[in-house]
């Protein structure tokens, strides 16, 4: 049993569009952070990342990212990930167009 609790998601960019995507337990990708699956187990985190990295024809540059879990879903621990999850602040482009 791990001493410290982890709270992570797997994120990457879509190969074709470049859009930020998140891994779900169903081994599918979602553009919405709120639908990302939160991983609390280190072994599962390693396995999920390995799965994501094996999806070379679907996504690019997969990595684990720390989150906290709020009522509306995972929230990034770092502001860079917050920007990735929302889109640029100068235009309502990317995820803000949905």
């Amino acid at each position: 049993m791990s001493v410290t609790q982890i709270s992570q998601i797997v994120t990457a960019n879509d190969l074709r569009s470049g859009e930020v995507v998140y891994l779900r337990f169903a081994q599918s990708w979602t553009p919405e952070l709120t639908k990302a699956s939160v991983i609390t187990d280190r072994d599962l985190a390693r396995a999920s990342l390995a799965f994501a990295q094996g999806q070379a024809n679907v996504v690019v540059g997969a990595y684990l990212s720390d989150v906290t879990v709020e009522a509306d879903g995972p929230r990034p621990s770092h502001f860079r990930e917050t920007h990735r999850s929302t889109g640029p602040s100068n235009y309502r482009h990317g995820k803000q167009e949905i």
Partner: protein
Amino acid sequence: MYHYSNFDHAFVAERVAQFRAQVARRLDGSLSEEEFKPLRLMNGLYLQLHAYMLRVAIPYGTLSSRQMHQLAMIAERWDKGYGHFTTRQNIQFNWPKLEEVPDILQALAEVEMHAIQTSGNTIRNVTADHFAGAAADEIADPRPIAELIRQWSTDHPEFQFLPRKFKIAVTGSPHDRAVTQAHDIGLRMTLQDGRLGFEVIVGGGLGRTPMIGKTLSPFVALEDILPYLEAVVSTYNLLGRRDNKYKARIKITTHEHGIDAIRQRVEAQFARLKPAFAGADWRLLKDIERHFEPPKFKSAGAPIAADHSLPQSPAFRAWLDTNITAHKAPNYAIVSVSLKKPGATPGDASAAQMRALADIARDFGHDELRISHEQNVILPHVHRADLPQVYHALRQADLATANIGLISDIIACPGMDYCALATARSIPVAQQIATRFQALKLEHDIGPLKLKISGCINACGHHHVGHIGILGLEKAGVESYQITLGGDAGADAEIGTRAGPGFGADEIVPAIERLVLGYLQLRLDRSESFLAAYRRLGLEPFKALLYPQSRKAA
């Protein structure tokens, strides 16, 4: 302007076809990302924060109206209806889809443009004075030599895997508008005993280790310049460090070996190389020069179409004051079109604005446009009688902001709104500062002030050479903004001095306001610019404006 030869057309077409096949192989799984990444970077395609980004070269910043129209078409058809002009005279499209990029490259090739060598450890887009060929103060048009360098450096087999990226800037004027001292090689045109040549500066650069370039040679004759450049780059290619990317630029090579040792090696190499060129470069230059014949300027006495019904409004006069520069031809002016309307994103132009600029250039500007490293668009050849109509047309396109060289004419990199390398956002800071000073209505009173913002230490926003520089960093998990003061991008370039601890995102605009309003109290009179006052008084009084609390505590 330069038109592609059959060779150029064939070369660019072949590269488009190659990249199309590479993208297809990536999409069908034949190429891994590891294999594909260097191939896409060779064609200017990055994967950024939210999407791919295609960086297209605008060689020495020169565009025709046809090319600008095509950029507008690309922005609308394959992007989100706009483009971002950069500090290296490139245009970046922020939202292309991978499988559509070959079509974009094809569309660029149709108008003699490409994205080759806008990334990677190669010689990048050659930049030049954005007033080249028009400025009253220039010795000669530097663009023929810039085009010669473009041809020489494009796909140069020896220089495709340099230790690090390599940037060259050229100016034909002693008033350096190309920041030549902050480039790997800066070329400054000069005359020696009536002969045309260049002062060759090496080892300048911003980034994490900012350095002002040093003079490698005070004069290299025009006919020697290409073998001399090859000698410099080949010396660096052998000597430059490949063990540490942060120490791989020629500025570090020059710093570690010393300018004298570099010079010795370059001169020996030049002696070896010069005979091999056998004058081929000179013949090519003579051919290129034909493409850069000045336009047929309307003579002063010729009848001029002018709409005298346009009111000479205060807004028009303010625009004339800030956005017009002296031209070498009688009765002509250089028009700088600001892409810095307060609240807008510095350097962005919508497709409609690009079309308007292209049409104005065609109708009133001898079909020429330039992109400046300060992220504005230049109409280099406008007859003074046409200025009211040009102003009117720019106004229609929301492009008549009268702020060139003022505090809201801010250089800002894309920062963390787009860039994968950024540590903080730049665009919102630029928007807020410009909007704030517009509201204060003090901009024209403040006078010339260069404010430059980078969203990370790589300094694409040239913050080190801003009179006021802002560097966005991460500190304790939030965005933090460091201020540097006293930088200068001009002929005697200087790196600014860090003023003190950084400011939070909600503190940076008030800090800049205190600084600039404080300057108004410190200056001798209106003629003393911010930079001049800083040079006279030094850092301390400005630091006191930025950190009033610590002064009280002391």
